[in-house]
């Protein structure tokens, strides 16, 4: 093993550094039409006639579509967690009968210039009978349309005997907690370009991301096109975070229009659209209570929550609620548990997933609860957690609940060991004493931590194929996707070690549905675990095939050969005849009539569960209420680190996003349902000033038994506990006694709270 574990510089960097990337909006075709979406200006209303006469008069406008033009297209189906009765809340590509959030697509304009398309879209008017919107998922149930209650579904996860737990409790702790509405917000907005070739009826969609293979099947079915006649192509992707790459109305519309008009169709979202039309996420309110015994051991937890889904249910179905309920117990034993999640429709932008879906929310709820219990019992927050952690000798630990169709069995973990290592790393006792002293001296400074369990490697399978090219280079062909995380580098590192070839020999293909039949894509921290393992398996076969081919050529035995520096020679004759990969490729092709290849599929029945702890020290500036993060430490067990540098990058970036959701980012609506955060002056992404240097304690103490390399995913663990740990630190800083019960903690809210506390 020479590449796994190394801080290998990325294969994908050079074109991106030179400005030679190919993001969606960089792709253009001759004769293309530009699509512009006309979006609902009100939160809820009955949609009447749409008048596009003035728009159509503008030179350069080719067509305007409303729902009447796409009546044959059904609503966008769910790819995950389809709860009974949920289908009726799916979104059509253009609004039918009603508009249900500001931003709901009502019409699309096609024009030969993007500026003209935008001019024309401004002239499209709609008759809308405005109805009273529902904007609160915890209040009275609204309506999806008159007579249809706005309840999209209810999720329940439970195990153990809660009645007994509460009967035996010496303490019962209850909390009501809220997580604000925010989202992934990749820096590249959404965009797609579709072409249609009448000669063979082939539709090609560029700008695909995340799950091209799944989306291909969905779009083909929606527009009734033979699936073999549609291909999705992923170029560079400017960030994913769960938001980007799902099937949205616009993806379907460009494909349909390309086929109907027999012209390329390009759609690039602007930032206002992105903030009101791409998936929001997170917004939940929980009411949770815990039954606790005299020493702080939690006997049972009963949780109910409301998820503010927005105007429609999108591709994730009930996945976020399911993951919230299933993963909320985190690293603790909790012998009895129940969580009931109510998915309520409101007249806001529809919600989907965002990095660590359900776990950012659930970790905030769980860890606030743990702090409240510690306070109630007069215990140190660390000691309270220690009492409740699942012990190492209980692994694998069957949660006795399922999520996303798989059982939750925590595969491996040394939870208390990681906690001890973190405490030692930060010098916990001394740090705590220092902070207490500073507080005694009048500073508002505090510390908090959050323990969490992540998930990774969602199956069921992934394929990989290695192809020896004529020039001696090796293609790693995968069905995974790149959202900027460095997947090419990681696949090449794994491929290099498995084959024994130098990393320079490899290039990686991903996100192309015309190159590989199956692909599950990149989400849920699955790419390295699933596709990486498939590459590992294919690489081992490739190594064996390579040796056999060389043995045939050198007329020797395969086991007597060594591969080094990209050449193959007899082990006992280092300076004797050696084959280059190019020579071997040529000879193999000549004698076998096909190139040398190897392929493998990796199946995983269950997910693996990495885990970690976030620790934060926060100081509040008394004049401005600015929350300054003096320290943010992430301890995380990744099982096996393929590229620690890239994992560090994942953690630092995810932590920055977690800070955003904890302190700055919130989609606020006025009482009429108008969104108030529609640009980057109102929706505040953290800048470099708000993001401290993130300290990382990366461990490989509990490799996953579910794959041969022991890998667990690293894409989400940097964000999962951030909100919870920041809340705890701020609460500690103000002596809040649990007063921080909602995210984000804006300066205004903090000021109100401090006034109320009389600090």
């Amino acid at each position, binding site marked *: 093993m020479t590449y796994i574990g190394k801080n290998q*510089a*990325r294969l*994908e*960097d*050079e074109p*991106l*550094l*030179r*400005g*030679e*990337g*190919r*993001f969606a*909006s*960089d792709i*253009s075709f001759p004769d293309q039409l530009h699509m512009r979406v006309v979006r609902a200006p009100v939160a809820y209303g009955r949609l009447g006639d749409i008048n596009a006469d003035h728009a159509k008069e*503008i*030179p*350069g406008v080719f067509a305007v579509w409303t729902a009447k033009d796409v009546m044959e297209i059904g609503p966008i189906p769910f790819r995950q967690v389809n709860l009974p009765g949920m289908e009726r809340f799916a979104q059509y590509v253009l609004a039918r009968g009603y508009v249900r959030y500001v931003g709901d697509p009502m019409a699309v304009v096609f024009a030969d210039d993007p*500026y*003209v398309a935008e*001019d024309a879209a401004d002239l499209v008017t709609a008759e809308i009978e405005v109805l009273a919107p529902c904007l609160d998922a915890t209040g009275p149930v609204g309506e999806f349309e008159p007579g249809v209650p706005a309840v999209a579904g209810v999720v329940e996860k439970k195990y153990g005997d809660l009645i007994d737990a509460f009967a035996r409790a010496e303490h019962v702790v209850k909390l009501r907690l809220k997580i604000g509405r925010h989202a992934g*917000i*990749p*820096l*590249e*907005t959404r965009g797609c370009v579709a072409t249609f070739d009448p000669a063979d009826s082939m539709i090609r969609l560029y700008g695909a991301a995340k799950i091209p293979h799944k989306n291909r099947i969905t779009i083909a079915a929606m527009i009734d096109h033979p699936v073999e006649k549609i291909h999705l192509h992923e170029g*560079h*992707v*400017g*960030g994913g*975070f769960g938001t980007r790459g799902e099937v949205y109305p616009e993806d379907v519309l460009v494909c349909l229009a390309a086929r109907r008009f027999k012209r390329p169709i390009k759609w690039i979202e*602007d*930032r206002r659209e992105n903030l009101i039309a791409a998936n929001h996420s997170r917004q939940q309110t929980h009411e949770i209570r815990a039954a606790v015994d005299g020493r702080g051991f939690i006997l049972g937890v009963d949780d109910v929550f409301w998820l503010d889904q927005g105007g429609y249910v999108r591709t994730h179905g009930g996945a976020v609620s399911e993951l919230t309920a299933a993963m909320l117990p985190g690293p603790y034993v909790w012998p009895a548990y129940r969580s009931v999640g109510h998915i309520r429709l409101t007249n806001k932008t529809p919600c989907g997933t965002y990095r660590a879906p359900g776990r950012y929310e659930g970790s905030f709820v769980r860890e606030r609860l743990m702090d409240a219990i510690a306070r109630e019992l007069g215990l140190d927050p660390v000691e309270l957690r220690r009492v409740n952690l699942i012990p190492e000798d209980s692994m694998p630990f069957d949660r006795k609940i399922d999520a996303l169709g798989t059982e939750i069995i925590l595969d491996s973990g040394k939870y208390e060991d990681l906690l001890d290592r973190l405490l030692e790393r930060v010098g916990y006792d001394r740090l705590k004493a220092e902070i207490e002293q500073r507080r005694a001296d009048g500073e508002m400074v505090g510390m908090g931590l959050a323990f969490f369990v992540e998930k990774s490697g969602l199956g069921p399978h992934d394929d990989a194929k290695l192809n020896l090219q004529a020039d001696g280079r090796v293609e790693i062909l995968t069905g995974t996707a790149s*959202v*900027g*995380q*460095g997947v090419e580098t990681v696949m090449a590192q794994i491929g290099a070690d498995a084959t024994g070839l130098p990393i320079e020999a490899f290039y990686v293909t991903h996100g192309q549905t015309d190159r590989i039949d199956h692909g599950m894509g990149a989400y849920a921290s699955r790419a390295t675990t699933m596709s990486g393992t498939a590459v590992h398996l294919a690489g081992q076969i490739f190594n064996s095939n390579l040796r056999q081919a060389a043995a045939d050529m050198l007329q020797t035995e395969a086991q007597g050969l060594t591969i080094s520096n990209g050449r193959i020679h007899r082990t006992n004759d280092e300076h004797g005849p050696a084959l280059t990969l190019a020579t071997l490729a040529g000879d193999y092709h000549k004698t076998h009539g096909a190139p040398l290849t190897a392929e493998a599929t990796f199946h995983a029945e269950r997910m693996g569960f990495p885990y970690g702890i976030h620790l934060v020290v926060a100081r509040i500036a008394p004049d401005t209420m600015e929350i300054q993060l003096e320290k943010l430490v992430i301890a995380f067990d990744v099982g096996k680190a393929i590229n620690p*540098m*890239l994992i*560090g*990058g994942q*953690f*630092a*970036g*995810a*932590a*920055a*996003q977690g800070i955003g959701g904890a302190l700055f980012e919130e989609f606020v609506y006025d009482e009429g349902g108008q969104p108030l955060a529609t*640009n*980057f*002056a109102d929706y505040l*992404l953290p*800048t*470099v*000033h708000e*993001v401290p*240097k*993130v300290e990382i304690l990366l461990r490989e103490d509990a490799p996953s038994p579910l794959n041969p390399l022991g890998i667990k995913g690293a894409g989400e663990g940097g964000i999962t506990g951030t909100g919870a740990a920041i809340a705890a630190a701020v609460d500690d800083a103000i002596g809040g006694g649990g007063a921080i019960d909602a995210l984000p903690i804006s300066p205004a809210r903090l000021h109100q709270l401090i006034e109320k506390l009389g600090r």
Partner: protein
Amino acid sequence: MSEKRRVSLAVNGTAYEETIETRLTLADFLRHQLGLTGTHLGCEHGVCGACTVLVDGYSVRSCLMLAVQAGGSDITTVEGIAPSKDELHPLQEAFRDNHGLQCGFCTPGMLTTLVEFLRDNPSPTERDVREAISGNLCRCTGYQGIVDAALDAAQRLKGQDRTAGPDGGESP
């Protein structure tokens, strides 16, 4: 549907004489009329900084400037930073070596901003670097790799510059 003007300007050392719609932004002109798609549009309202280019050596948000306003100017985009197709600029090398990019969408604006900054501040502190890129949003990296890359690049540039003072050491 707007007026057009004839405009002369230089981009990355190449002179252009172009007919430009008066309402076309500089960013859209560079991207779609000249095909220099390295300049990215992340917000089109001047906040994210991805579209930053250098106009006569000074950083400008190309989404907030009309192309016709650039008449007579000398513009540098991300495509003009590397010295050749075989070599990267030391700042680009430092980005690669310090994991200063993930998706790469903010990268062009970070690079152009830092080219200007390091030219004017050859010996920056970390605080200086953070101030310099505080107008550029990155959603992937948490900024740390970018800050490290900028500090590393300052060292590399000193090593490269023979006129550097005694503290201008070898690049690492």
